[in-house]
């Protein structure tokens, strides 16, 4: 693996990266109250007396939030702690009515795990293991709006108390590409598990990026933490900028201050956010309102049993059982929605052709990736809002597979399907696109082509074999692309001797 280095005036520098990812747990109700987690509601509508921290209200954990965090932990092969506890993280701010965030510092729900990443998309076999230190469960804070009033800030507590998982990596990453691959892989797993929707632009997943630099192999440097970065691209940009900045500071004889920084997507730079370090004095202590969280074996068994096939296992199966290329398997398994679509297409294609899935998998995968994704791209759609369903796509694939139409005509039919929404068979029927395998008709067409191109036939017979393709093309053209190319080849070979 090529190593990423920052080139300074004093030589090369290595970058050390750790990520803390906050992922909003998919649940109907909040972590400690019955208020809804729905996005985009009226301000303060989804706020219970618990979330507003009214005196006397007590938190009761939502089982589903715990379950989703445990399932996530199992998906990264982590240790699940059957005994964990909630702590109070104390700070005063207008978005936090309790005056403390309920979190888990000392005894997190999920312990050590790991994630396998492929930093180079073109080289999916080149992998690296990134350690994950822990996953703990905590409350989200409310939202402040500063631009609605000249002297006031408005507070909306709808998000206050929504469950978050904080997923803390080891400082195992060494380049922006590795950090990007880590976030993508983590997001992919969260979506497979269904514990977080992974929508970074809506804020349901965001990363705190810890960066330090050192001479290769030297002592760890002082790190900075860039908060709330909300896209894979920004995570990579923040690392690039911050590493460069640190190298410049160090080479000019300065020192790195351990501090919180903010990423500005507009300029691609980071800047210092908090000057007062004492703001970090959170005075954690166990929350006396909550007993320790103890999980029994039945709960853990249900969590494990409900896990779906995860991307790594699926990719392996696609390669070994379905016979797909490593690249295709990678493309089809990266996002759970793509994998589901492919599997539905595969099942329907196999059924329509009366063949085993493994027999049609390659054809279906190639076609989906090269033809269908291309057609989707052209109209700016994705699989989610595809105008052609997998059942319709399977019907078209079966027509090609059975030889009713040629692959070339298939492209044309797909285009028409995108335009009209009609089924493939109806289009083929209506436009008379059925492939001609009748050797009589093809022979006639071939004879005509050879007769009209006597000079080329001479050249071919004299050894210019590349002309074979020309004859095929002319025959296909004469038959409006409907001739079975295999039969055309056979007839031509026979005639040209």
């Amino acid at each position, binding site marked *: 693996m090529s190593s990423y280095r920052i080139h300074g005036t004093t030589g090369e520098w290595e970058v050390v990266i750790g990520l803390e990812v906050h992922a909003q747990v998919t*649940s*109907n*109700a909040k972590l400690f*109250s*019955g*208020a*809804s987690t729905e996005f985009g509601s*009226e*301000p*303060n*509508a*989804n*706020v*219970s*007396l*618990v*979330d*507003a921290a*009214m005196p006397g*209200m007590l938190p*009761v*954990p*939502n*089982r*589903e*939030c*715990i379950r989703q965090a445990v399932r996530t932990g199992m998906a990264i092969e982590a240790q699940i702690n059957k005994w964990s*506890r909630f702590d109070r993280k*104390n*700070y*005063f*701010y*207008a978005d936090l009515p309790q005056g403390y965030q309920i979190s888990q510092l000392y005894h997190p729900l999920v312990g050590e795990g790991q994630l396998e990443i492929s930093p180079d998309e073109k080289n999916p076999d080149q992998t690296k293991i990134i350690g994950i230190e822990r996953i703990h469960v905590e409350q989200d804070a409310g939202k*402040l*709006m*500063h631009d*609605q*009033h000249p*002297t*006031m*800030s*408005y*507070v*909306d*507590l709808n998000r206050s108390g929504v469950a978050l998982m904080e997923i803390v990596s080891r400082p195992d990453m060494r380049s922006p590409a590795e950090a990007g691959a880590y976030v993508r892989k983590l997001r992919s797993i969260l979506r497979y598990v269904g514990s977080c929707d992974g929508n970074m632009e809506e804020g349901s997943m965001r990363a705190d990026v810890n960066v330090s630099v050192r001479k290769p192999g030297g002592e760890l440097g002082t790190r900075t933490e860039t908060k709330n970065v909300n896209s894979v691209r920004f995570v990579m940009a923040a690392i690039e900028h911050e590493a460069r900045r640190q190298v410049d500071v160090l080479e000019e004889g300065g020192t790195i201050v351990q501090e919180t920084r903010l990423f500005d997507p507009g300029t691609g730079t980071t800047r210092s*956010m*908090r000057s007062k370090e*004492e703001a970090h*004095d959170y*005075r954690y202590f*166990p929350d006396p309102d*909550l*007993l*320790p*969280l*103890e999980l029994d074996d039945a709960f853990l068994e249900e969590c494990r049993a409900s896990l779906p096939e995860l991307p790594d296992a699926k990719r392996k199966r696609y390669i070994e059982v379905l016979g797909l290329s490593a690249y295709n398997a990678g493309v089809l398994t990266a996002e759970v929605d793509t994998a589901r679509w492919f599997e539905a297409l595969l099942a329907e294609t196999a059924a329509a052709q009366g063949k085993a899935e493994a027999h049609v998998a390659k054809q279906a995968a190639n076609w989906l990736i090269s033809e269908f994704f291309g057609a989707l791209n052209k109209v700016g759609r994705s699989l989610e809002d595809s105008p052609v369903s997998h059942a319709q796509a399977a019907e078209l694939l079966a027509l090609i597979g059975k030889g009713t139409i040629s692959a070339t005509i298939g492209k044309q039919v797909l285009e028409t399907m995108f335009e009209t929404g009609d089924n493939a068979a109806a289009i083929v029927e209506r436009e008379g696109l059925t492939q001609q395998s009748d050797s009589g008709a093809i022979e006639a067409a071939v004879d005509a082509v050879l007769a009209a191109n006597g000079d080329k036939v001479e050249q071919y017979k004299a050894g210019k074999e590349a002309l074979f393709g020309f004859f095929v093309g002319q025959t296909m053209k004469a038959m409006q692309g409907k001739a079975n190319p295999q039969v055309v080849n056979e007839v031509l070979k026979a005639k040209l001797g």
Partner: protein
Amino acid sequence: MSVDRKTVAKIASLARIKMDEEELDRMVPEFNNIIAFVEQLGEVDTSGVEPMTAVIPQALRLRDDVVDADPLTGGNVREKVLANAPLAEHGFFAVPKVIE
């Protein structure tokens, strides 16, 4: 253990409570009295005793993931939530501007 004036000032600042010199002077002995009182617990030999997490032995109860199952701990009570706020506008709490 005892605290000095500087520590008390820091705790006040973390809690966003403004204290003048006189109040701080009064608070230091009060803090130390409380600490001394609690420190008496240290005289008990607790070696070999499991830390207690609750006064009565019981397990943490979990709630089902149902929105507004119990109206007492559910949402859609904006009026109640905002009722005690010194200032509320357009359904928001309104607080003095807090941009750092």
